[in-house]
């Protein structure tokens, strides 16, 4: 097993130096070292999307991103999306009363952000094919509405 090293990371605009083994998934560094617990563990195998973050502006499963390459790009987590939970996506999520248990929703919102950066007017089908994260409570219909609501606000 490799020994721990120091790694630089930029998370939500802040520089951090963390000590971890190079293959440590960024998910656990975010959660347990940087106390950014909004990014969730759900499966550990790139299936559920609960750990979705943006890495260099693109969505990424934090459970699959080794800390050794984290320095290459900036990381954005749910905590960095806005200063006071007022990003259009967050406001839309509240307006549509999307979350139920809420465990998947950080990943959903980050995945939605990735979509809206590429497509500012997504159809319901485009949303459904992009948003592959699992929500066990079944909030999918409200997520579609919330993304379209946020998209409208962001275009305005």
């Amino acid at each position, binding site marked *: *097993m490799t*020994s721990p090293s120091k790694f630089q990371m930029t998370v939500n605009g802040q520089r951090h130096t963390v000590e*971890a*083994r190079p293959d*440590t*998934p960024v998910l*656990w560094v975010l*959660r*347990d070292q940087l*106390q*950014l*617990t*909004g990014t*969730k*563990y*759900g*499966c*550990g*195998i790139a*299936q*559920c999307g*609960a750990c979705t973050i943006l890495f260099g502006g693109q969505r990424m499963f934090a459970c699959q991103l080794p800390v050794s390459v984290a320095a290459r790009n900036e990381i954005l*987590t*749910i*905590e960095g*999306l*806005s200063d006071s*939970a007022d990003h259009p*996506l*967050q406001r839309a*999520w*509240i307006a549509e*009363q*999307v*979350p*139920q*248990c*809420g*465990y*998947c*929703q*950080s990943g959903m*919102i980050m995945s939605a952000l990735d979509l809206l950066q590429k497509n500012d007017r997504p159809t319901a089908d485009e*949303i*459904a*094919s992009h*948003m*592959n*994260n*699992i*929500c*066990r*409570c*079944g*909030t*999918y*219909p*409200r*997520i*579609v509405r919330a993304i379209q609501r946020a998209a409208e606000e962001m275009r305005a």
Partner: protein
Amino acid sequence: MTDSLNRREFMFGTLGLTFGFTLPLAGCGRGSRGPDKSTFVTSWVNIDPAGSIVILTPAAEMGQGSMTALPIICAEELDAEWDDVRIEFSPADDGLYANPLSWIHAVMLTLGSASVAGYFDQLRLYGAQARRVLMESAAERLRVPLAELSTEPSYVVHLATARRLSYGEIASFTKYPTASPQITLDDLKHASQFRLIGHDVPRRDIPGKVDGSAEFSIDTQLPEMLYATVIRPPTQGALPIEVDETAVQDNPDLVDVVTLPDAVALVARNYPAALVAERTLNVRWSDIGAVAKFDSDQSVEDHIHIAQDLRATGQVIQSTGNVDKAFEGSSKNFEATFCSDMVYHAHLEPLNSVSWVKEDGSVEIWAGTQAPTHLVRSVAGALGIETDNVVLHRTLLGGAFGRRGAQDHDWVVDSALLSKRLERPIKVIWSREADLRYGRFKPITGHYLRAAEDTSGRLTSWHHRVASDEALEQSDPYRYEKTNHWPVIATVGLATPYTIPNIKTEFLRTYTGMRISPLRGVGATANTFASESFMDEIAQINGVDPIELRLGLLKGSSAAQDVIQAAAELAGWHQRKSADPLGFAYAELDGTLFATVAEITVDSKSEDIQVTQVWAVVDAGIPVQPNNIAAQFEGAIIFALSNILKERITVKDGAVQQSNFHDYSVLRMQQAPRIQTRVIRNTRKPTGVGDTVGVSVAPAVANAYRVLTGRRLSALPFRTKAATVG
């Protein structure tokens, strides 16, 4: 998951209770605060001089929204300004906070769609009592008769002199009565006076769930904390007899390998190191005999045969007239078999807990649970300490669906035992693989149904036999004993709502040895699938409109007629063409009425079913939070579709064959249908929604499939390629 025992007795018992105005607070946990002279403190409502009103909520918040819905009910009668209200979880205390519906065992439980239904009257009465006490204190201070006072949100008002006292001001001089104020349900607001109930108050848990600040137990961080995962046996009930640590010895972050009574734990300085070790550790498990040969496919077949074999009589759940005699004199008979497989909860937050055993032997726990007092008792038992020495911090639950209600709280006892041994705070997270492989699944069921009609085509006889293991015996032995071994999980939804002269429904108990559990909608999902598919089959064979057939059998219930007609209207049922792939199903559970129409397509190559649209109507009495009921409905429809289209746990040689979401698929957004719901605004006392609201989805889809293909789906989850007429 539904306690449907003696519903009438529950109602009667509830109405006959007087609710104590208890102070000071007893119990433990986050909601506790000591009495303070300047603070109004009761077991449900605390008001401080600044006017902040804390309402305690007994129910777990696992997504269903009762963390907001229950305080709304109390605030309505308290006449509290909603913005002044803060919500806290109540302590774990059965005496104060058990759901009145669960009087038979009096355990705090959040399950079976029971929270709003069960606490509704109690919370209204408590709110009204608290308001009365505040008014009495104000009357004395203002030297006016009580009758001249009224309230406006968070104020007591004396209109004649235009004087007002805020609840906060009164809190500093409240005189507590020696006995509870005598208030009855008749003294409470009429539904037309509600300003919170029925008015869609935004859920209080939602803001924290969009910015990452919501705290689940998995997010708990303590100084010096260690992390662990657990390995449990591949076959149920095996015990660890030998642990070979060779493969994990080069893992420098691994702190300890601990053999627990029924598992092996890997304790590490960080969680990924524990996960790495989990994959490589070698454990030899004891041989546990017959269970090691369990084969789920075979078991499904066995269950069908048991249900079919009329020589064995089951436990009779519902009996009217004489079914056997009716079959002898019938002119036409129908029969069919159905079955359902095991399903995994797949709560997205894997089971986890944090424990911190202190030097004095007491323990602090952070956990999400549907049964907080069971948790406290289980942990106290495992550590050999008094329950008073267990402090539970109740967190939000990242999904539960019945799994986090298991009496033994295996996922919490793990961390308590490890913390005691390592003398450090410990966070145990079951890896997804551990969580799934050692899941507690929805039990297998087999169903046999037969019906008879007379020469005029009138249904004269209905007989439904279900063979199943009973999940409550394992998941909650305490309740199982208290309810006299009544098969409360397996028989939910077995009783038919239809008026038929001769009815018999029977339960045939099986003993599989598998770890089984209540799971959202559990018995009702399978029982309703079988009975509503069968009812549809009768309609199809007779060439009768399936909705007309049901309406004819529900003539005595105007509520049922309304719900069914509303669903038909919503779906445009009467405008459909006969070949349109629409299916209908109806169900009644604990006073809640559901009607569902599903539209499907079938892929010509793969034969996969795609559900394109669902229209669904529910009547659950007074809708406390209508938009939240709609959300529960949408979610339950998707949960049910996921169960029936995607999910299947298979067991070979006693071992679960799936391990994570790559081989245990759940429904994703692309497969979700368009959903239109309607929540009927009735004025009956509220009944349940969250657990059971999806139960009519499976038969609605199966019935649409029958219209489209002429074939009857008889197994859950659907296997279209092997589909046969039952």
